[in-house]
């Protein structure tokens, strides 16, 4: 619908715009931006000082469909996305079957179109069947519309194969997203090799399982000159390696998750399976180094690694419970409250990491509200405080270590191509209260 957003504060790092701005949205695009648009012929929503940001893009989620619909579906995952202010997500290929054929890509796109909520960019398998033996049908997958390649969760152990993947993906202009883990070092581990994990007597994962793989991939990238994107970096020494690579002129991009920015291994105390994730939560020094890497630009992207699981799976004992956190519905308020309000990073940096940078790396629309851009945007309430309640998630995955946290900065309006997908927590097509909510805000003319 056509619409004017008035009285909001725009933060758009893609064009260095920061400040009060009126936004005219027409035909799904940003038509005009001005401190004062003057009289308009469209409905107007008064935002009363709320923040207007380019729609958030999560370049690392697991939507579980096809094959694991108990954990999540594309529809529920997309509902969680727009509820959390994300207008686009890139979904990992470790479904059943994995995304290694064009039919599976088409299936995901069709399900996403039917859900009609967030944009969904499938990531294709890097190797056939995620088996790490031979390259997948990369050209076919690229033609079907994947926006990158990854064997996320089952990293490619064979270095030659990884080099070939980088070299070939370069031709296709697509990133290779590497989950950096030396599986032989990590084998059997469930928790970081730190004081808490050792005290609990749990099998550990050494930080070197990540850093050794980060180093390898950076060196392969130097040979292969592809587009290497390092997923969910978690350790201090990995950050040092990024600094070294930058110095050496190696091109790469890297991401970090909200949980690695905010939590340490102590969260697993009491055998808390909601804090079991891979890579594992590490130590305060690691956490601080990751925040610093955001600030100085060594890490480009924040991605949630949204990994929904069925409640019964996370109720198992710590060793058997699956890794992962349901992240889409908490990411922005967590980071706003704990990184921006505390002065650790400026809001512009957060928006860049959650929107502009992932759009650039994936090579997709969005990440900007410059005139002419698709009207993918989110409005955030910086003042109202709310408690995270996992039972209210749209995601089927209620697994979060942040349940009960009091946060500010919850998204209150999400638009994809000018269409309202979420309004004050109610998601289009998913919540009976959505239409009454829309009617009421347009009647009042304010959000």
């Amino acid at each position, binding site marked *: 619908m056509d619409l004017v957003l008035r009285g909001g504060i725009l933060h758009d790092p893609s064009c260095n715009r920061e400040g009060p701005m009126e936004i005219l949205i027409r035909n799904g695009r940003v038509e005009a931006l001005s401190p004062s648009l003057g009289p308009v012929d469209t409905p107007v929503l008064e935002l009363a000082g709320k923040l207007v940001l380019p729609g958030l893009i999560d370049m690392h989620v697991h939507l579980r469909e096809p094959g694991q619909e108990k954990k999540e579906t594309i529809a529920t995952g997309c509902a969680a996305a727009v509820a959390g202010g994300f207008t686009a997500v890139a979904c990992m290929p470790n479904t059943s079957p994995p995304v290694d054929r064009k039919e599976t890509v088409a299936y995901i796109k069709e399900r996403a179109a039917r859900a009609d909520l967030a944009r969904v960019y499938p990531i294709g398998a890097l190797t056939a069947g995620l088996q790490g033996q031979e390259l997948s049908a990369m050209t076919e997958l690229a033609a079907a519309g994947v926006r990158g390649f990854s064997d996320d969760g089952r990293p490619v152990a064979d270095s030659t194969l990884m080099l070939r993947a980088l070299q070939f993906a370069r031709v296709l202009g697509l990133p290779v997203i590497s989950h950096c883990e030396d599986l032989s070092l990590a084998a059997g581990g469930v928790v970081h090799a730190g*004081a808490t994990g050792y005290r609990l007597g749990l099998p550990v994962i050494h930080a070197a399982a990540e850093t050794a793989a980060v180093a390898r991939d950076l060196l392969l990238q130097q040979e292969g000159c592809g587009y290497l994107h390092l997923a969910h970096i978690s350790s201090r020494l990995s950050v040092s390696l990024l600094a070294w690579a930058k110095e050496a002129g190696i091109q790469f991009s890297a991401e970090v998750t909200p949980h690695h920015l905010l939590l340490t291994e102590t969260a697993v105390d009491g055998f808390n399976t909601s804090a079991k994730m891979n890579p594992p939560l590490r130590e305060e020094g690691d956490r601080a180094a990751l925040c610093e890497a955001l600030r100085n630009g060594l890490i480009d992207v924040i991605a949630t690694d949204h990994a929904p699981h069925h409640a019964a799976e996370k109720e198992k004992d710590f060793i058997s419970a699956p890794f992962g956190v349901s992240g889409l519905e908490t990411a922005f308020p967590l980071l706003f409250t704990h990184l921006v309000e505390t002065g650790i990073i400026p809001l512009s940096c957060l928006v860049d990491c959650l929107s502009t940078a992932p759009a650039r790396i994936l090579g997709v629309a969005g990440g900007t509200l410059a005139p002419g851009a698709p009207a993918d945007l989110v409005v955030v309430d910086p003042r109202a405080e709310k408690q995270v309640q996992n039972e209210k998630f749209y995601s089927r995955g209620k697994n979060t270590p942040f349940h009960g946290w009091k946060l500010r900065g919850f998204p209150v309006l999400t638009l994809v191509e000018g269409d309202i997908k979420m309004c004050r927590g109610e998601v289009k097509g998913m919540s009976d209260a959505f239409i009454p909510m829309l009617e009421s805000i347009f009647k009042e003319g304010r959000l």
Partner: protein
Amino acid sequence: MFLKDLFSLAHFSVAAMQEVMERARYFKDRDRNQTFKSLQGKNVAISFWEPSTRTRLSFALAVQKLGGTVIDYQPEMGSEKKGESIEDTVKTMLSLGAAALIFRSSIPGLFYEIAPHVELSFISGGEGCYQHPTQALLDIFTLQQRGVTLQGANVVMVGDILHSRVARSHFYALPAFGASLTLVAPPVFLPDALVPPGASAGFSLEEALPAADILYLLRVQKERQGVNLLPSLNAYASLYGLDQKRLALLKKDALLLHPGPMNVGTEISYEALKYLERHNPERVLFQEQVANGVYTRMAVLDLLLAGR
């Protein structure tokens, strides 16, 4: 503080540990000519999902001596097997009228989440590599029975610390009674982050032995050696086994503890063990540990269950 469960000595106050010692002494002193009734009419379930002889027997005996009834419950459980869930096990216990579940499991933390929500005492008989609290308590009791002053004593613990639940319980028990702890093992068994605050750690047994008041030998489990932790058990024995040469480095009155079962030839050489048994049997507390286990477990059961 109201204690219901015993998973970890981290949650046991020094006062509670001292209380266990007092009650254990009480039971031991009166065991010959008195029967006890504190568990009369109470059912106590014992489920060991890992092989054990002495701990299981010791707990069963403790329940009987206190007048309670043992329910032997052995469901197929655990995540990998298609057995019943943790919740089902707990429900069964409650339906059987059990006041407590004494359990041993190779998987740590099985009952951690459910424990606060149910009226069933959980008492660990050893959980994976997590803790073995009654073992640590019975060790302390054994040393006290020997008249050892733990305050200021130096306990040297040697062996597979990484996989030892006994060691992890002693990280709390020994300091609670004022003893200092020195950990000795090859690095693969002793990562820095495992060493608790206040303890010291080293890789050389020869350096640690002369200052030891008590030498605690841990089991080096054969079943863990399949994964290339060490070149061989013999390689371990040659560097860390207590042989006669190393025995000579100990103070003449230093005491020896071992949680059993012992691998003679690995943590202690056959010759060293025979020498000690022949010349200084009073320095070897292995059998006393077993005997005192019953009284210590009676004390724990009495503390957690009597009056509830």
